[in-house]
């Protein structure tokens, strides 16, 4: 029996209050009628209306989503390949360098990653814009994807794959029909992680973008530097709502999948 004392209850309530009150305040004040964000002047949705009419924000949002979809998709493919190489390919020359390059971007300060990529793009004369942001985001998020996927690859039973090969599958079919369905949850969460990392990124995007492409974080950052504004509160509320719905849906789906899998396993174990 674990003890659950008043101390634990206090720690949890204070902790979660600290984590959530700032965001709740942000959401509440996005419905404030006053232009002054710290003075409450009644309920209003006018800032949402102004946000929708603000072309610059809409364009930036569109660029951000485009970049995030492209970079997270490429990163998922490359990251899954990299995870496969790390877990399954065995020894090859340059393996240490390879795993170093997978783990280093995870701890690299964003300012350095951004600066170095910018210097590369200028060095090879690539015009900066959507393409360069996609390349930059793909590079750091593929490392996150490969970490997520390789932890799943390590834990799964390799004999399933061998059985498929014994039964006449080609190596590719064995991957497509056996391995992929098993690691699919990890691949999907890797994609989601890459997608959010890209949506969120300010520093690397600021370095690697040109005048033709402004992402939402860059736009928000330049607006926020001038101070708090109710429009940004409205925008933040929309983003918080999307993330909350997304995370809760994803966790319900994985929970359901886990329940289904447990039931299937029980059925399989039952003697006929």
């Amino acid at each position: 029996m674990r003890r659950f004392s008043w101390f634990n209850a206090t720690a949890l309530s204070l902790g979660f209050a600290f984590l959530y009150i700032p965001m709740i305040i942000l959401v509440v004040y996005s419905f404030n009628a006053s232009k002054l964000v710290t003075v409450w002047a009644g309920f209003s949705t006018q800032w949402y209306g102004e946000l929708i009419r603000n072309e610059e924000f809409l364009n930036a949002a569109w660029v951000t989503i485009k970049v995030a979809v492209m970079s997270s998709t490429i990163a998922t493919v490359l990251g899954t390949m990299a995870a496969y190489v790390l877990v399954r390919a065995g020894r090859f020359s340059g393996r240490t360098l390879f795993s170093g390059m997978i783990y280093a971007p995870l701890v690299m300060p964003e300012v350095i990653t951004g600066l170095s990529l910018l210097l590369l793009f200028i060095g090879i004369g690539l015009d900066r814009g959507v393409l360069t942001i996609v390349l930059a985001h793909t590079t750091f998020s593929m490392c996150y994807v490969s970490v997520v996927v390789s932890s799943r690859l390590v834990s799964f039973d390799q004999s399933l794959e061998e059985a498929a090969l014994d039964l006449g599958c080609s190596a590719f079919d064995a991957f497509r029909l056996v391995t992929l369905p098993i690691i699919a949850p990890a691949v999907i969460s890797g994609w989601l992680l890459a997608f959010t990392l890209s949506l969120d990124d300010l520093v690397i995007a600021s370095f690697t973008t040109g005048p033709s492409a402004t992402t939402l974080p860059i736009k928000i950052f330049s607006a926020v530097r001038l101070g708090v504004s109710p429009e940004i509160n409205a925008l933040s509320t929309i983003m918080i709502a999307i993330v909350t719905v997304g995370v809760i849906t994803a966790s319900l789906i994985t929970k359901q999948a886990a329940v289904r899998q447990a039931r299937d396993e029980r059925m399989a174990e039952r003697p006929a």
Partner: protein
Amino acid sequence: MRRFILIAVPYLWLVALFLIPFVIVLKISLSDVALARPPYMPQLDFAAGWSGLVSFFAELDFDNFWFLTTDDLYWKAYLSSLQIALVSTVLTLIVGYPIAYAMARAAPEWRPTLLMLVILPFWTSFLIRVYAWMGILANEGLLNQFLLWLGVINTPLTILNTNTAVYIGIVYTYLPFMILPIYSALERMDDSLLEAAEDLGCSRLSAFWLVTIPLSKNGIIAGCFLVFIPVIGEFVIPSLLGGSGTLMIGKVLWEEFFSNRDWPVASAVAVILLLILVIPIILFQRNEQKQREAEG
């Protein structure tokens, strides 16, 4: 052949977009500023062949690193980044440990929900979470309004644009990184060890110090590194919540690059920042490896 492609594609991608950019930073940190596009020299002239290569290397020097030591700004920024990272890691540990502890003690059916509540802010935009504090900590902000209303203070406190605001911002945004590893260490802990300690005459508090803390040591170490390492290079928090007095190396690098347009010095700042990070990164990797070996 298939194996070769499988290895080559991600390998080449990382070499082209991670390793080579890095070599370029190193090279430019050894170059000189020039009023040209790109604004540094020497340029590597492939057309000149071998003699071009020789004169290129002859012109590289450590002047930028020498410059970093002559100007107070840089070493002060490095020191203050280290100090801010160290203090905020300790603060995050103090705030995070009780939360992780209470989560691990909660009823098992509650734990997935609590875990999700900790992870949810992590998925929310970092920028927005930092921005949320700007409205709270401002002079006419909600915290001051609240404290004035309570009568605790008579004049508003200046918090925004000071180091205090930076500490609050860091603890707030990095808290999940501290809670999660400590929680997973505590959750695996065998409760009968605590009972044994108490049966053998330990008080609750000494059982906590002698059993719980040592058993969660790996989680504490992992959490501290996960906060300390990224905070050193942090840019968003000091630039939004900090003031002109807040010196952090990420901010200095950004300004050197975007405001002063001094690429060689910005690159030299980056190289030194990386050298500073190498030690904690290696220690962190070693801790992770030890943990994996202990589990496996």
